[in-house]
């Protein structure tokens, strides 16, 4: 449902993402991992339309979204979260989530119904009337996920949603994410919390220095010498072979 074909993005002399090709199929949970600076966030912003590729093309469902703007991509059913949450600060938690559903449903009443279900799913319904300025980082992350889900997307891009959460919150959110494919939502997920992504993702894509260096089921990828090398340096990669 999402296809990247030889996508590259240059910032000045540096190729932050180069020649990335992969596809995400309907119903999958695909994780993207890699060390800091591997190009994961840039890749995300390319897919979501926040920046445009210097080369290559991106397709989503039946549309070419290579040069589409973020709001156009969102309207096609591709929702994203932000690594640094971007809530609507002067509104309540409920209004924040309701707003996501408002474009599709037209009236506040119907959008509120979607918001209600989504708040329940994200386990923040008890905070519905709270102003978002009172939320902790962990709760803001949950709100990010709820806001993205309330647009009722077919593909959800998650950008490091586990960062800042307590172990209990991580386990809850892992369980919630694992159920998304049953709800018709495909997931593409960048994450640094390995325990979470290793256990939930069906497939991992590993990035290093702007390239994809490995791809496959989490268990296989974790044993891949190139992957270990990328994370820990060549010495460890050789050691693991022994």
């Amino acid at each position: 449902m999402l296809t990247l074909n030889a996508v590259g993005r240059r910032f000045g002399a540096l190729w932050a993402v180069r020649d990335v090709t992969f596809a995400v199929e309907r119903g999958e949970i695909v994780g993207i991992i890699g060390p800091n600076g591997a190009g994961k966030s840039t890749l995300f912003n390319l897919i979501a339309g926040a920046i445009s590729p210097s080369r290559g093309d991106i397709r989503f469902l039946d549309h070419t979204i290579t040069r589409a703007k973020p709001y156009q991509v969102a309207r096609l059913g591709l929702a994203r979260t932000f690594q640094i949450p971007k809530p609507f600060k002067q509104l309540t938690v409920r209004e924040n989530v309701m707003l996501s559903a408002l474009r599709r449903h037209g009236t506040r009443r119907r959008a509120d119904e979607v918001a209600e279900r989504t708040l329940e799913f994200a386990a923040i319904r008890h905070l519905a009337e709270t102003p978002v300025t009172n939320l902790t980082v962990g709760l803001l992350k949950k709100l990010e996920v709820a806001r993205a889900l309330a647009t009722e997307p077919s593909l959800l891009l998650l950008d490091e949603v586990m960062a800042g959460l307590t172990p209990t919150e991580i386990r809850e959110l892992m369980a919630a994410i694992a159920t998304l494919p049953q709800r018709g939502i495909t997931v593409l997920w960048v994450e640094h919390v390995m325990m979470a992504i290793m256990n939930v993702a069906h497939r991992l894509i590993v990035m290093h220095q702007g390239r994809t260096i490995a791809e496959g089921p989490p268990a296989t990828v974790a044993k891949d010498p190139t992957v270990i090398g990328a994370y820990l340096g060549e010495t460890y990669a050789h050691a693991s072979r022994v």
Partner: protein
Amino acid sequence: MAALTTGTAAAGTGPSFSAAPRRGAVSIVEVAVLSGCVVAATLIANRYAADIMIRTFLWAGLALAWNIAGGYAGLISFGHAAFFGIGAYTSTILLLRYGVPPWLGLLAGALLAAGAGGVLTVVCARLRGPFFILSTLAAGEVMRIAALNWQSLTGGAEGLEIPPLPSAAHMVFQNQPPYLALMLGYMVVLFVLANAIEQSRYGYYLFAVRDDEDGASAIGINPLLVRVSAMALSAALTAIGGTLFAQYFLYLDPTHIVSPDISFEFALISAVGGLGTASGPLLGALIIVPLSELLRGSLSQSASGLHLVIYGVIVVVVMIYFPSGISGAIARAWSALARKAAARRVAKKTA
């Protein structure tokens, strides 16, 4: 002011109706204040008081118009005098040259101002915060200088005069009551419209773009379209106020009409009253405009200029102690009272 206290004392709830002022609902306070205005406008006999009331109603409507861009969409503008001027000049020029009734002229002015506001926002699309504000200020000044120098059209510094010949078709009246009704109508329509926006899908798009543009974009909202349309709507409604102003004073000149002072007043009234709610500009204007007029009237003989100092001090005090404005302060006081009452009820039950 009396209306405010009786308003908060009475309780009443329902969907999109609340006791204290809040966003997205009409409160008892606003209903009381608006009814008070209607009653006062029908009973008033004193010419001076009626004049203050006419200005107050007009300025309340103008602040409500400003608040659509400045409060709801976060497009703080110090250049709205340009739109005010476009409205005043367009209808007046059409009337003087072609005999077009201002009732139609105000529509022409509104359309022209909407176009100007839209273009300004597109041109300044990449500017945020102080940079956007400064560019609106500059746009206002450009309009003032253009009005001063385009003498063949605007009469330059000498200004334009509308012949004081009473005629309902030409929106010129001999007595004050029709003007009172006109300005009151403008204020009420703007208030109702602002409230409708707050409760609508479009209103929520404005809040979203104001609070986080990237976040708004990520849920499918086109931020540029929202910003441009908010500014165009705000400009058009401001221009209508400009026409009403011209028809009341029957004289326009660039220094008074297209002056930054006018733009600041719209912004100040909204900020003192409370940004981003319909009750804010309404309460702000009803308090600030009469206050500044009365101060000017009572002090201009003895200590000329002192009224501006006092006015300034009041504005500063309100901004420091009530950052969410008068409307926000009333809302907070009301919820504190409600909490106390609830606590008393609980105490009684447990006792």
